[in-house]
């Protein structure tokens, strides 16, 4: 009952405030009137009576105030009044509000968005149906170099047969293949998988069935394909009747048996796969892929058995690896490493394993800058508010009430910043297309992460509130008189020193952050721009399918390729053409080579000797790829099977075998894998090294003439005019001119092929780029705000100087000179700190090289310039101000 009544009163007190106040007025007026009337009745004159009544009431306003205090909901009413006051007070300094809200908002929003994106891409478990945390991935590891590698098919079979800690172990890998459907042709990312792949991941089909044990792993497995959900929707119109129809992948027919569930991207997080086929159904050379233990081409993902742990699995797989080591020379020096979670591949892991820690440091720094911005701004503003606060204190306001007021001002700022921050976080995550224009991220599940947002809000909000309350404590009563009198505060020297110190610190901190982002960005960019050792621009690799499917035997295949090459060489649209066994060196097989006379008995391939990349090429390859020939000669068309075997080695191989002497004229042994012995090859030339991958070192390479080692499976490299890669259709026409029945499998420009490889670096540098832009934005806004406010505060001083005869030019010089000194100091500290940051980054990222330090001067210049601009604009305004106006304006 009583509660209801109180609530009703509180409601009317808050909502019908005017009415309630008017009633109180009336009531008190009536009281005084009645008292006066009483006094009159007691014999006073009308005048006397009224005065006595007023005296007896002891101040109508005090009575009103204490009555109001008794009202229900009065605390809320006071809060509302204070809020209105705070808003009014903030409205008087719109610059401060705008900069504080912007800087906090960008800090909160940026930090949250970066976290969300990276979390979605890397830290969250794979989007598979059941218990992703029970998945492990395994990698082959070379003990000597800790280099991670894939597994051979035989490895996979052994592990699958022997493991007890894993309930299931699946093998897979991915590639891009030419896709032909009824509606047209294109390329698609295809994952080739073991028959238990979907079972181990726990993924059920959205339609039809997934690949299962009936399909098989060995060569000759069912040619079936499971469509990804998106490709089914986009290329097949989401039509359920596609089940049972066929598509062609690299001209081979596959029957569609099912559709994967929405959101399933395969087992590689950063490579969204679109189709899945059994690897046994691919036309792979069985000798290499299924029978050679040295042919490592599969990635493994396993599901832990009930009650098994990742550590247990590691122990068990290490044991199996040790047995493999002793049983097979090829596996000597290699172990197995188990990683918890799945979906991140080896090279990606290197880039990402330190990411969470680095990420939290970066986000922390970002928030720190945002908070520092607001703190220094608030201090500047506090100085400006000192007089007002001092006046209020002198007029009897309690310190508590001032703190309350400033607290509310801070809270208003924090709330405003939260709204802006939330908005920015939402916008940034939604338009993750900034990043996905560079990398394919359409399918990332970008949910707002409330924990991160909450943390960011709490930190910055608290800072905003704390720093806004500080000035109330700074004003001590003893200073009141001085403060009120001269307006700038008695301790002007001390305070301005503190402000200047803050500017220096802020500049230094921003510099470190910006320089660090720049260093990492530059390192990743450098990887992206690494010289592969040849000129990829203008090159197109095109491959004709396995000619056996067109009824060719190997002799006819070789003849076909020869004809193809000679037609390409005389094609006026091309400036060059060559045949190559492997387009990219990292696809080239590794073979063991020996100096003549040092080969092991038996004369067949083994793990001893020097492991080098081997490529079978046509004579023109070095010219077409623009690989410099350093010594000796190129291959010629005369180097065919009727002539003695010859070879060309890359420089590192030459130096490894024949240091300080000429390699040309030496003999190198490359034992055949099986069958007849192969005679040693005479080295006829030395060429420059090229890189197997952009992030790797140049590799030792053995080149042999394709004419002496015929191969039915080679690739045509074509160079177009003016660095423009020729279209794949060029090959189409050439091939059709020889035999119209031969279809072209596909092609790709070398630039695109190299790009696929630096996928991770590309993602990382895109993110760091976004991060750097946010940091720069924060730093410039913050510096501008603080410096500009500082100059505004000096308006009065500048006006006095102007009145005393200083020219606007002189004043401008004064302010800029001062700014320059601060900038120099901040930059000096910042550069020193950046040197330490650089050292830390080199420990974290192996790709960071000393040359990346160039980011430091760049960041310094950017910040110093933005700081000087911040000085210049308000200084010019202040210098031009009429001194009388300036002195009066306070």
């Amino acid at each position, binding site marked *: *009952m*009583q509660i*209801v*009544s*109180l609530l009703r*009163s*509180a409601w009317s007190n808050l909502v019908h405030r005017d009415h309630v106040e008017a*009633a*109180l007025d*009336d*009531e*008190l007026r*009536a*009281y005084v*009137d*009645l*008292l006066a*009337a*009483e006094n009159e009745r007691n014999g006073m004159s009308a005048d006397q009576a009224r005065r006595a009544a007023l005296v*007896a*009431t*002891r101040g109508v306003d*005090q*009575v009103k105030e*204490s*009555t109001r*205090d*008794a*009202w*229900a909901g009065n605390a809320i009413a006071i809060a509302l009044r204070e809020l209105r006051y705070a808003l009014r007070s903030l409205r008087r300094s719109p610059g401060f509000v705008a900069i504080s809200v912007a800087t906090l908002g960008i800090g909160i929003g940026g930090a949250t968005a970066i976290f969300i994106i990276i979390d979605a891409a890397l830290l969250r478990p794979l989007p598979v149906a059941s218990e992703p945390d029970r998945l492990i991935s395994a990698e082959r590891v070379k003990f000597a170099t800790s280099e991670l590698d894939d597994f051979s098919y035989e490895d996979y079979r052994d592990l699958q047969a022997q493991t007890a800690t894993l309930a299931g172990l699946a093998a897979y890998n991915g590639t891009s293949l030419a896709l032909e459907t009824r509606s047209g042709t294109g390329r698609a990312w295809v994952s080739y998988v073991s028959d238990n792949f979907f079972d181990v991941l726990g993924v059920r089909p959205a339609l039809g069935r997934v690949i299962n044990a009936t399909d098989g792993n060995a060569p000759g497995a069912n040619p079936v394909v499971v469509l990804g959900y998106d490709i089914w929707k986009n290329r097949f119109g989401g039509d359920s009747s596609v089940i049972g129809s066929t598509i062609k992948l690299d001209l081979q027919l596959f029957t569609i048996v099912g559709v994967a569930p929405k959101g399933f991207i395969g087992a590689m997080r950063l490579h969204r796969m679109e189709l899945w086929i059994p690897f046994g159904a691919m036309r792979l050379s069985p000798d290499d892929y299924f029978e050679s233990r040295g042919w490592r081409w599969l990635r493994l993902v396993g599901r832990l058995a009930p009650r098994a742990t990742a550590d247990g699995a590691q122990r068990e797989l290490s044991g199996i690896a040790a047995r493999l080591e002793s049983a097979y020379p090829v596996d000597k020096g290699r172990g197995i490493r188990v990683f918890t979670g799945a979906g991140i591949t080896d090279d990606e892991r290197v880039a990402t394993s330190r990411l969470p820690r680095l990420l939290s440091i970066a986000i922390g720094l970002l928030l720190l800058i945002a908070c520092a911005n607001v703190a220094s701004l608030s201090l500047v503003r506090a100085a400006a508010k000192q007089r007002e606060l001092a006046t209020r204190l002198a007029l009897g306001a309690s310190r508590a009430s001032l703190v309350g007021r400033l607290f509310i001002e801070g809270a208003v700022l924090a709330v405003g910043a939260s709204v802006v921050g939330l908005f920015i976080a939402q916008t940034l995550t939604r338009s993750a297309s900034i990043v996905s224009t560079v990398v394919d991220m359409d399918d990332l599940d970008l949910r707002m992460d409330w924990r991160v947002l909450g943390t960011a809000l709490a930190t910055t909000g608290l800072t905003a509130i704390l720093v806004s309350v500080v000035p109330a404590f700074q004003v001590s009563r003893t200073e009141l008189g001085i403060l009120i009198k001269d307006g700038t505060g008695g301790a002007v020297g001390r305070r301005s020193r503190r402000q200047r110190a803050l500017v220096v610190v802020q500049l230094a901190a921003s510099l470190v952050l910006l320089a660090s982002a720049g260093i990492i960005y530059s390192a990743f960019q450098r990887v992206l721009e690494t010289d592969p050792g040849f000129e990829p621009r203008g090159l197109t690799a095109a491959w004709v399918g396995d000619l056996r499917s067109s009824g060719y035997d190997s002799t006819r295949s070789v003849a076909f390729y020869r004809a193809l090459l000679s037609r390409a060489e005389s094609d006026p649209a091309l400036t060059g053409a060559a045949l190559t066994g492997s387009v990219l060196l990292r696809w080239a097989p590794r073979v063991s080579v020996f100096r003549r006379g040092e080969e092991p008995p038996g004369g067949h391939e083994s793990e001893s000797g020097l492991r080098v990349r081997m490529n079978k090429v046509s004579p023109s390859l070095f010219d077409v790829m623009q690989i410099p020939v350093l010594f000796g000669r190129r291959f010629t068309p005369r180097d065919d099977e009727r002539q003695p075997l010859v070879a060309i080695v890359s420089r590192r191989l030459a130096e490894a075998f024949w240091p300080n002497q000429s390699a040309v004229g030496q003999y190198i042994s490359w034992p055949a894998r099986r069958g007849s012995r192969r005679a040693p090859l005479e080295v006829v030339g030395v060429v420059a090294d090229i890189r197997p991958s952009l992030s790797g070192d140049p590799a030792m390479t053995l080149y042999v003439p394709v004419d002496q080692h015929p191969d039915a499976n080679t690739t045509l490299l074509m160079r177009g005019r003016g660095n423009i890669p020729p279209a794949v259709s060029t090959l189409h026409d050439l091939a059709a001119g020889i035999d119209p029945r031969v279809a072209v499998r596909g092609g790709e420009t070398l630039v695109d092929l190299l790009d696929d490889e630096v996928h991770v670096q590309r993602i990382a540098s895109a993110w760091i780029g976004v991060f750097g832009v946010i940091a720069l934005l924060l730093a410039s806004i913050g510096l501008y705000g603080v410096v500009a406010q500082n100059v505004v505060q000096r308006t009065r001083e500048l006006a006095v100087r102007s009145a005393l005869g200083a020219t606007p030019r002189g004043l401008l010089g004064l302010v800029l000179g001062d700014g320059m000194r601060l900038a120099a100091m901040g930059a000096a500290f910042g550069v020193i700190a950046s040197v330490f940051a650089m050292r830390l980054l080199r420990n974290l990222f192996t790709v960071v090289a000393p040359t990346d330090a160039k980011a430091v001067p760049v960041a310094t210049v950017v910040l110093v310039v933005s700081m000087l601009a911040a000085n210049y604009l308000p200084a010019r305004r202040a210098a031009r101000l009429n001194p009388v106006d300036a002195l009066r304006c306070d």
Partner: protein
Amino acid sequence: MARQTPLLQGTLDVLILKALSLQPLHGLGVSRRIDQLTSGAFVVGPGSLFPALHRLEEKGWLDASWGESENNRRAKYYKLTLAGRRQLGAETSEWRRIVGAMSAALESS
């Protein structure tokens, strides 16, 4: 004027309820009535009277309405509600209990 006594904490509310138990009164009327009831021992100034009246009204013990005063002025009259009357009863017996206990305590030898 009789000797004035400072109001005991909590006594003002019950005095106001008592003052209003006979008839509705305006603010000054309540003040005068308390004066009369306590033979001038307690004088309630407007600074404590009005906050108390408003508080009691918001609690639902008093009901206020505007009416004509004796000399034809508009004034706000307070009257006891049912809840107020119940509260007065409760506070009266509570007060008696305290007084009884205090007297017994102080007069015992």
